[in-house]
């Protein structure tokens, strides 16, 4: 598949935004990466979700380095959280290969809205 000039610009602009958000908010770039892979590169949902991890890994490494360099990391809670995330990540990665349907996305959307409302207060 060849990329048109217009699609290249769309990728450049939106992924720049995704990168800024991922650094500024410490996450969230993946959601935008998935959307770009789905809509511009026309990947199927499962491939988009898996490939998005490949996109977000280098950005997160760079952002994390800046946070560490600026002494913004509290290591004790970070390491406990990391333990949980790694175990959960293995479960999630195994589940993705079996995932079908749209239900997970619906639940995810509702959880995000609830989280957003909670964080305002």
């Amino acid at each position: 598949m060849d990329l048109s000039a217009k699609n290249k610009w769309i990728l450049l602009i939106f992924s720049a935004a995704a990168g800024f958000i991922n650094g500024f908010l410490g996450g969230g770039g993946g959601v935008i990466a998935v959307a770009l892979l789905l809509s511009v590169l026309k990947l199927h949902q499962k491939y988009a979700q898996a490939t998005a991890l490949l996109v977000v890994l280098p950005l997160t490494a760079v952002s994390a380095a800046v946070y560490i360099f600026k002494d913004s990391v509290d290591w004790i809670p970070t390491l406990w959280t990391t333990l949980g995330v790694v175990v959960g990540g293995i479960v999630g990665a195994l589940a993705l290969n079996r995932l079908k349907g749209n239900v997970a996305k619906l639940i995810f959307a509702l959880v995000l809205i609830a989280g957003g409302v909670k964080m305002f207060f």
Partner: protein
Amino acid sequence: MQTFLLILFGFLAGIMGGMGMGGGTLLVPLLSFLQLPQRTIQGANLISFLPMCCVALGFHAKNKLLAPQHIGWLIAPAIVMSVAGALAANAADNDILRYCYAAFLLAVGLWQLVVAVRFELRRKAQLPRSDAKGTDNSPQPPRS
């Protein structure tokens, strides 16, 4: 108790993260229940993502779910701007970060809700014509 919750919240978010659905997007609001400063939460989110991502990518590579063609167009600009974003975050007030995150979550949540509902409606509308579509779990090409 705090330690248990850190591991539990990490586990829940890790499941979403491993599926590539934005585990970080979930971990930040969960950790905000624990009265940690917003920047500490964001740092924990970034760092915890790194090993999880490597493990998950290993699985996805084995399952042949990676389609890396053209992704340089996403990675290059995103890396540059992620440095700018991280520097801005380290200069910003914790409350500002929290409000920005909340606004981001609401925007993504509403957007994903619209996408999911529209998909569901379209699928229902197509149902009489298509037979096994949507429930087919056999290997498919990465691109449509």
